[in-house]
């Protein structure tokens, strides 16, 4: 029979590849649509709370989008969007909500503490850890520059 190396070469040659054009297009369209909805929320909050500053509007918008992502996950809709959109629905903040809510739902059968609470961050964990670690690093550099000045 053919050797291990030859087989791996054969596999690399024959393995079906992702249709890049289609995946990119769907990711772009759905990702863009999610951002548009976010912009819509932002405009709506500006209209409702004209005296609030930009920061508060931003926070309200993120909260609304996270809620929407979690809600659609709960109704079993978000994973269907993800099947077509791929990165388009993973990258926005709604995707982050999906990555926290979906394991929480999945591991519910293993109890509140060891199921939901422990396993809630199995997917989002790395994002949180790297987010915190990089903000500590950036904060340190920022402080250092401030001290030099």
């Amino acid at each position, binding site marked *: 029979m053919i050797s291990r190396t030859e087989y791996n070469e054969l596999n690399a040659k024959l393995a*079906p590849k992702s249709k890049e054009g289609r995946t990119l297009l769907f990711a772009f369209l759905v990702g863009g649509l999610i951002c548009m909805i976010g912009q819509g929320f932002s405009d709506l909050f500006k209209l409702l709370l004209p005296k609030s500053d930009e920061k508060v509007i931003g926070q309200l918008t993120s909260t609304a989008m996270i809620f929407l992502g979690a809600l659609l996950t709960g109704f079993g809709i978000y994973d269907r969007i993800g099947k077509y959109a791929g990165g388009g629905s993973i990258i926005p903040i709604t995707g982050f909500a999906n990555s926290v809510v979906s394991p929480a739902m999945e591991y519910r059968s293993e109890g509140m503490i060891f199921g939901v609470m422990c396993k809630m961050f199995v997917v989002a964990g790395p994002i949180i850890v790297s987010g915190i670690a990089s903000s500590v690093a950036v904060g340190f550099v920022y402080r250092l520059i401030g001290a030099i000045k």
Partner: protein
Amino acid sequence: MNFGTQTIRFNNKPRVLSGYSIVGPKESMGPLDPYFHKRLRKDDFGQRSYEKAECKLHMSAISGAIIAAGMTPQDIDVNIGGDLLNQIITSSFSARELDISFIGMYSACSTFGQALIVGAALIDGGYIRTATASTSSHFSTAERQYRYPLELGTQMTPTAQWTVTGAGCSLLGKEGSNIFVESATIGKVVDFGISDANNMGAAMAPAAAKTVLKHLQDTSRSVDYYDHIVTGDLGIYGSRLFLKLLESEGIKAGAVHLDCGAMIYDKKQRCPQGGSGAGCSSVVFNSYFLHHMRAGAIKRLLLVPTGALLSKLSSLQGETIPGIANAVAFEREDD
């Protein structure tokens, strides 16, 4: 071994008395639907968890096969079963409900072949009269164990396969049927260095090719001896590699080869390379193939369930995926 280096010949012809298959909603929308014995409308089978649902599936398959043979659980000497979940909980928990001696098996998706071989050997040796050989898998329990939470919005890669929700059981016995287990080739674990857990067809194809080659060599048969050589769950792409590997040894099997994983779903069902899972070969064999063997359309069949022996842990630790395949030859005696 009594028939070459890796093959057993069963001299007393252990019989296949009955077969039973039960599948989930997605499988019953596929092309093999008319052959299945029972279809679920919802894949939770009215249970609190998918693990419980799979357990009920497994139990239903065993009792279905026993009833189909006109027997009762008291008539069964050994229940041989396996599945994909950690510590094979599905099989052992369904054995808890059945008052039958139990042998638990695991060799991933090729477990069905292993169960058939052990059952046939025990009967052939005269140690027992009857045995059930059963396996099951469930998409939702397998996803959780091997991949991601169900509701996570991920995409399947082009080489991925969909785990079959279903359970199948064959009842083997000393006499009472014209279909018998003629011989079996016990596979060796083969690793050709594939490490992508989403390309299990490629990981298992070399094991399947080696087992089939060895079987043909041990029995001095050509592929034409069989009406069909049926692999378990290589999928569409894995089957292509399997045929290429055989071709490199000068064997053309394209005309007789079928793959349970490639047969079970329709192209429209969006399962890139077809089905997989421990239940895949057992539901397809016990429905479609057993039906056609009974009808006489298939007289000789080589069933080769294939397994990828990986775990989530081994993949994360960067291990490559070893494969295994066991071949079981069925023949029909004409009256």
